Each structure stands twice: as structure tokens, then as C-alpha cells.
């Protein structure tokens, strides 16, 4: 495969990446993570070979970059009322609170939940991005839902 012009790649996948990162790192850090993801993709782009699924490729970069910067920074507690209005979180206050709980999930489960529900990916693709089997991806989502329910009760 010859990589398409980067502008077309960016236009084609920017919304999925933005959606994923909003759910994964939260509204405060989404912009930085978005820049880092695409800069990293751009650096690697000319040497891309045999990459048949550019969407999975860039979402994998987004996941790894966000995990790295998350580790480096350490988790920050952000009071719910200080969060800026985030369109991707829906207009319901209860949805805001729910997505704040998602932020408290461990990395892989959080990524799986965001990819499944906020991005809308099939388990097979989630497995490819998280470098695990389709069944393991499904299991991560199940675990995450269980934890969310516990946190809510």
C-alpha cells in the first residue's frame, strides 16, 4: 500500500481519534494528546509499508501516546464542576458524571470501553488496537462495565 496524502488521512480519521482521546484522557488533555498522536503518525508516515488499516494504525498510536503521557503525568483529580462543557460528553449531567467514572478505570479497560461505546468499533478491531484477542477485548469491556456499576452503586 502507498500511504495516501497525509491531509486525506488526517481528514479521514481526525474525528475518530478525537472521540477516542476525549473519552480516554478526558476533556482537559484531549488537545495535547491529539497533537502528539498525529505528530507521531506524521513522523512514521513515509516509512509505512503494508499497513492495510490506517484507522487501527492511528488509534493504536493514540492509545500508546495517551498511556505514556498518562503515566508521565500521574493521575490528576479534576472536580466535576470545573470541567469545561464538552460536547462529546452529551448534554446530560449524568453522562458527564459517568464519563468521569470511566476516567478512573485502568488503562486497557478504559481504552476498550471508549473504543466500544464512544467510537463504536467492533471487538475484532479493538483487539487489534490493544494488541490482544477479540475475546480478550470483549472481556476488558465486561470487566469495565462491572467496575462502573460498582462505582455507581
Amino acid at each position, binding site marked *: 500500500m502507498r500511504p495516501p496524502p497525509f491531509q486525506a488521512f488526517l481528514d479521514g480519521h481526525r474525528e475518530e481519534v478525537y472521540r477516542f482521546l476525549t473519552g480516554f484522557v478526558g476533556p482537559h488533555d484531549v488537545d495535547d494528546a491529539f497533537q502528539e498522536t498525529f505528530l507521531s503518525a506524521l513522523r512514521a508516515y513515509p516509512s509505512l509499508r503494508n499497513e492495510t488499516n490506517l484507522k487501527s494504525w492511528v488509534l493504536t498510536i493514540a492509545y500508546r501516546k495517551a498511556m505514556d503521557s498518562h503515566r508521565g503525568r500521574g493521575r490528576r483529580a479534576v472536580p466535576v464542576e470545573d470541567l469545561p462543557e464538552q460536547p462529546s460528553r452529551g448534554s446530560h449531567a449524568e453522562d458527564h458524571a459517568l464519563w468521569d467514572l470511566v476516567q478512573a478505570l485502568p488503562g486497557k479497560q478504559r481504552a476498550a470501553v471508549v473504543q466500544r461505546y464512544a*467510537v*463504536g468499533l467492533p471487538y475484532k478491531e479493538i483487539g487489534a488496537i490493544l494488541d490482544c484477542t477479540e475475546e480478550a477485548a470483549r472481556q476488558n469491556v465486561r470487566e469495565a462495565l462491572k467496575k462502573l456499576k460498582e462505582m455507581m452503586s
Partner: protein
Amino acid sequence: MSTLEDRLERAQRVSVGEAAAQGAARFVKAAEEEKLVDVAFARVDSPFGELLIASTRKGVVQLSLHGYDQNETLEDLAHKVSPRIFEAPGRLDEVRRELDEYFAGKRKSFDLPLDWQLSHGFALRVLKATARIPYGRVSSYREMAEKAGNVRATRAAGNALGGNAIPIIVPCHRVLRTGGGLGGYGGGLPMKEALLKMEGAIL
């Protein structure tokens, strides 16, 4: 009461288009600062329809006339020059300005650095000779072949001009058939004729 999964799925129906577009615009600026933009392109209006112009750090590498498939042109540039190609109109302001002045009849020669990397060998020599034909003058395929070093290669000279990656700026419209026929033009013969009339080369 909706289930947890339903509530999570609502995030999918919320539009992120604008936020993502703004993020993408900021990213292109950052890419430019990091010197990771190898090819910048812009679409510009002209009296002959929308043109696509592209520049590398060396200079103008392509001008695609109206009627050509722009996506195909960009794919081709991605393959032959670099896939790090972005719509960055700011990088082409000077090119746009000189083209505007030319179409308005206020500019007789272009003062733009060119990147010739899409042309090679005999074709490159033909195009460089073509670039020296002054405003308001015409030449012939035969004369260009001769200047490129092979007087008998008239047909090859015609092919080279047909493959001109930077028309208008490299004025292949000033090359006519030996004997005066208009010959061909990528933008169509009416455009060739209109340019030559504007320049006062033909009546």
C-alpha cells in the same frame, strides 16, 4: 431508566466535527513548525477555473489546471515527492499573488523558485528552454527540441510539453506547432488561445 451501555453509547451521537477540525488545524501549524510539511498545496481561483498549486521547500513543484482530477494529482505527489502533503494555503501566498497579477495582465514574468523534480532528462531540458520564452512571444516544438539538444525529437518535445508539471509558470502555451498551428494544451485549446491573446502574441 436506560442501561449503562445505552448511556455510554450516547457519546457516539454527539458531534465532534468542529473540535476535531480545530485540532487538525492546530496540528498542521505544529507540523510546519517541526518542518514536517514536505509539500504544501492550495486551491486557487483563476479566470480558467480552480487551479491546484503545490510547493516543496525548494519551490513550486506542480500546478494542476482546471479539469484535472485533484485527488489523483495529490495521490501522485504523495507517491512521487512525499506523502507528508498538506493543504497549507499560507505557504503559497506569493505564488497566488503572482498568478493573480499575471491573469490581470499586470505581470509579465514570474519571480518564483521552481522545483523541477517531476521532470527528467530531455523533457527537463525542453521545459527549461520553454521557461525562457518571453511574454508575448511564441516558439515551436521543433525549436524547443533543438534547444534541448536534439532537433529531430520534435514529437518527444511535444510529449515533454504535454507532461509539463507547472503550466502557466513554465509557459508551454507559448509553444506552437511548426508552421503556426496551435498544437495542444492540457487546459484545452481555448485556454491556450486566450492566454496568447492576453499576452498579445496572437490577434
